[in-house]
Structures are given as C-alpha cells and as structure tokens.
C-alpha cells in the first residue's frame, strides 16, 4: 500500500507578532499545519494496520522545508518528496500549488491513496485536496473521520455538519481528513534522530514542467490583524462583574 500525504509548511502561528496590524513573518519558525499532521497520522495508521507499505510526504515551499520535513519523517513518514524554491512558492495561490503537488505526485509510483488535511493551518482554504483530485482525475472523499481499507476500496466515514455518510470509494483515491480522526503521535528522541537519515528527494520548482500559464489567479490586497479595542476593565469578584453587566443591560435584574 503506497500512501502519499500532502502537507503544507506554515509559519508557527503562535509566534507571529504584529506591527501596525501587519504580521511580521521574518524569523518565525516553520511547522506543518495541525490537520496535516492528522492526515499523516491517518496514513501511518493505515500502513501499520496493513502490515506493509510506504508513506511518502509531498510538500512544496521555500528551502526551510528541508528542515521542517524532519518533523513529518520523525512522526512516521518513510520518505519525503519536496519541491522547493527561494520565494515563488511562498506567495503562490492554491491553483499553482495544486499544479506543483500534482507534478510531484505524478513522479511517484503506484500511489494507492492520497491524504490531505481538510484545510491548511494558516489559510484553511480547503482547496488543495479537491484541486489535486481533479488534476489527477481521481475520486475524492472529504472530511473523513474514519478510514478503513477493504480490498481495493476505502470505506470512509464522511462527517458533515448534520449527517455522517459512510462512503465506499475505489482506489486510488484522494481523501481529506478532519482533525477529530486521530491524535497525531509525538515522536520519540530516537525517531527524531533517525528522521534526518530517511530518504528525501528535493526538486527545484524550475525543474517541473508547469506549462506556460501559471500565474496567481488570486490577488491579496492586504493581510491585517483585526482591530480590537476592548475595554479590558478589571473586576475583583463575581458581584462586581454582575453589577457591570447589569449596568450595560446585558443581563436582567
């Protein structure tokens, strides 16, 4: 069973500071999005229950990716296939990244199952799985909260807002997972040390054949922290709090 997990390198969201409402991203360490880690864990669990197979992580980003990927290799991935570029991928929109990931995946042999998080940790746009499935002309099932491999099909519990659908999809297929599907493992020190020695293919973006027409379709005008001007009034106890809320007519009495 050859499993491929697509993961996105994002800035560590806890460490982003803002200056004049603008995010300062320089020197913020990189990580993978949380739901991407669920996707990786799902792949590793399938491999383990299947008895054999390989989990390959595919990712596109700047050169820091070569370091960030160790996180995934320590957490159970067997190999990595990376597409890197100094900066072009940092500002690439979903349509371009989908094309890049697709070109990378096409170079992998006999892929049975492709896993994505339902949304990335930073933009949570949810386009990557559906776009890559379309580009590869594979069936896609989204929002998986459970996956079971049965012969050449996967039985997937697809959890939507008000219903759960149990769906059978023939392999190869694309599945996007949601965060509730599992609890990603915390790698041991030995696993972290071994991660650096696992096979890793790094390809330059320039070496991919993306055709002539690959420019961003989405233009970002600005990214700003929302304005917040809360009163931040300190109250000392429950009764002071209730008085304040009553004064504002927020509660009765």
């Amino acid at each position, binding site marked *: 069973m050859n499993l491929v997990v697509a993961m996105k390198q994002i800035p560590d969201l806890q460490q982003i500071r803002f200056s004049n409402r603008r995010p300062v991203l320089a020197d913020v360490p990189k990580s993978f999005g949380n739901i991407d880690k669920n996707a990786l864990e799902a792949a590793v669990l399938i491999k383990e229950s299947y008895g054999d197979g390989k989990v390959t992580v595919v990712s596109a980003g700047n050169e820091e990716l070569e370091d960030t990927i160790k996180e995934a290799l320590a957490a159970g991935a067997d190999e990595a296939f990376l597409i890197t570029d100094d900066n072009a991928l940092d500002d690439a929109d979903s349509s371009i990244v989908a094309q890049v990931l697709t070109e990378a995946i096409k170079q992998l042999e006999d892929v049975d199952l492709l896993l994505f998080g339902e949304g990335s940790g930073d933009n949570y746009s949810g386009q990557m799985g559906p776009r890559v499935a*379309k580009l590869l002309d594979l069936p896609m099932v989204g929002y998986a909260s459970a996956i079971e491999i049965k012969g050449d099909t996967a039985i997937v519990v697809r959890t939507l807002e008000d219903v759960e659908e149990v*769906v059978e999809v023939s392999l190869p297929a694309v599945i996007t997972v949601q965060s509730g599907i599992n609890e990603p493992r915390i790698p041991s020190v030995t696993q972290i040390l071994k991660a650096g020695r696992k096979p890793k293919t790094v390809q330059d973006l320039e070496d991919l054949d993306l055709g002539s027409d690959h420019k961003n379709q989405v233009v970002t005008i600005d990214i700003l922290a929302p304005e917040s001007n809360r009163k931040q*009034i300190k109250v000392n106890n429950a009764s002071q709090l209730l008085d304040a809320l009553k004064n504002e007519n927020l509660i009765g009495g």
Partner: protein
Amino acid sequence: MAGIMIYSAKDNLALELLSAARALAATSGDEIKALTVNNDSQAQMLSAAGADVYTINSSGLVPADIGAMADSLAQAVQQMAANVVLLSSDRSGKELAGSLAQAIGAGCITDVLDLQGKDGRIECRRNALGGAAIATQYIESDRQVIAIAPKTFSAASGQGGSVTELQVSVKPSSIKVLEVKEKDKDSVNIDEADIIVAVGQGLNSKEDLAMVEELANKLGGQVACSKPVATDKKWLSEERVIGLSGKQCKPDLAILLGISGQVQFTVGIRDAKTIVAVNSDENAVINQMADYVLTADLHEVVPELISLLA
C-alpha cells in the same frame, strides 16, 4: 455581460447566496442564475424568491462525489455563460469550490466573510494566518469561484422567478454511499445565541460542566467550548465548538471561563459585543480581548455567580 451562477445544496444557504448575487449585480448589472441539483422543492423556493432557476435532474449523480458534482456544475457554467460562481462555504460547498475551480480553470476564494463589487472586481475578506489576521483578496482570472460563509447575507425574497431544465452528462461514479446517519442531535445553534457561556481547558472535570450549564440557564444563554473540550476530552458535542474549525459567533455577551485565548478560538468570538474573561492566569492572552477581566478560578466564580443570580 457576464453572469453569476449560485448553488448550494442547502435551501437556506441558497437564499443567502441569492442575496449576495443581487448585491453584486446591483453594481455590475450581471445576470443571476440559480442552479439546483436533484432538488425540485429548492427550485420552486428559489423561483418563488424571484430567481431564474436552472435545474439538473440526474439519478446517476451522487452528491457525495464532489468531482462528479463539479463536472456537472462546470457544464452548467458553460451553458449559462456564467463567469462568477457563488457557492456556500459549508463543508460540502467548500470542497465543491476547489473542485469546480479546478474544473473550469477559475481562481477561488473560500470562507468569505464579506464581499463587495469594487472597480469591476469582487473584493473578498477571509481569515488568514489561522484567524490571527484578515486577508482582503480578489480573483484576477476571468472565471471566479467564491464560497461564502453561512449567515454572511440574509435570505433573499422576491417574486417572479422561472424554472428551466438543464441537461448535463454524468460519468459513472467511483463513489458509493453505503449509509447516511443523522448525527446525534445536540441540536443547539450556539451561533444564534444572544448570550454564550464558553469553557476551555481550565475546566477541571466533566462534572464541573453542570454548574456551567446552570449558569448559562440562569442567564438565558447557551454553553459553548473551545475545540479541545469537545474533540480531545469529548465533554461537549462538536456543535458547541467556537473557533476557526467550529462556529463563528456574534453574541451580545460572551462569558469565557478558563479559556487561554488561542487565536484558533478567538476568531470565533471576537465579534461578540461584550466579552468577559474569567481566568486564573492574570496574563492570559484572552484578557487582551475582553471588556471585563476577572482573574480568579472559574470553579469558585461560577457558583458565586449562580448564587448571586438566584
């Protein structure tokens, strides 16, 4: 002249999209066409609200097969000569957005919280950086797919619509729905509550939820929580999760108990009119976005509040 196509599998969201399309068409003069798939009652409803409705009826089309749905919508886009497609950014609408955008070579923006036509383009606002920031974006390509968050627009009304049938070809699906289960109905809509009492990981035990529920009842509010309380501890249902991957709430009053203030949570409550933070850590991040800050153990504060409200 360009055209706007709207589609949502959900009736209420389809009506909201009709309002969004009308707001855009008011400045652009675009024609609006509503699409329904295997849903005659929705077609009637949209037509009764004044929409020109186009229907796809195909027994071979599996709604869970997002790729096949996208192929059908792509054919509708072609036949209607639409260049802007508005979808609902609920779960299935959001994945359809990515799939359809790829199928028709469109740029795509999902989870749109606000949009307006400006200088011939559609400016959209959505969360970025895990909700820590808001991005303003527009799509440059001729074809655009925009998925709009539920409740961004109110439901449209009107009269004098029409219904026309469309024919599309559908390939055999590789996806089979074996079973559809209604979710255990904790049929609460925290995003509609005027008062929310939310708990986070500061809550010691599941048993302590009882007093939180009592406080919410006394205030006429709903109990909500941060994501770990539902997904890790499973003390409350996921219907009650506030935040980026939960509900976006705009209550008049939000009382946040034992919540540290990670942005993945605060993005879902920052539009509340008044925010109260009760946290034992006086440096908790949540205090910076609160109107009233009480530095204390919630397990002591909640019983006091209950007895004072008695």
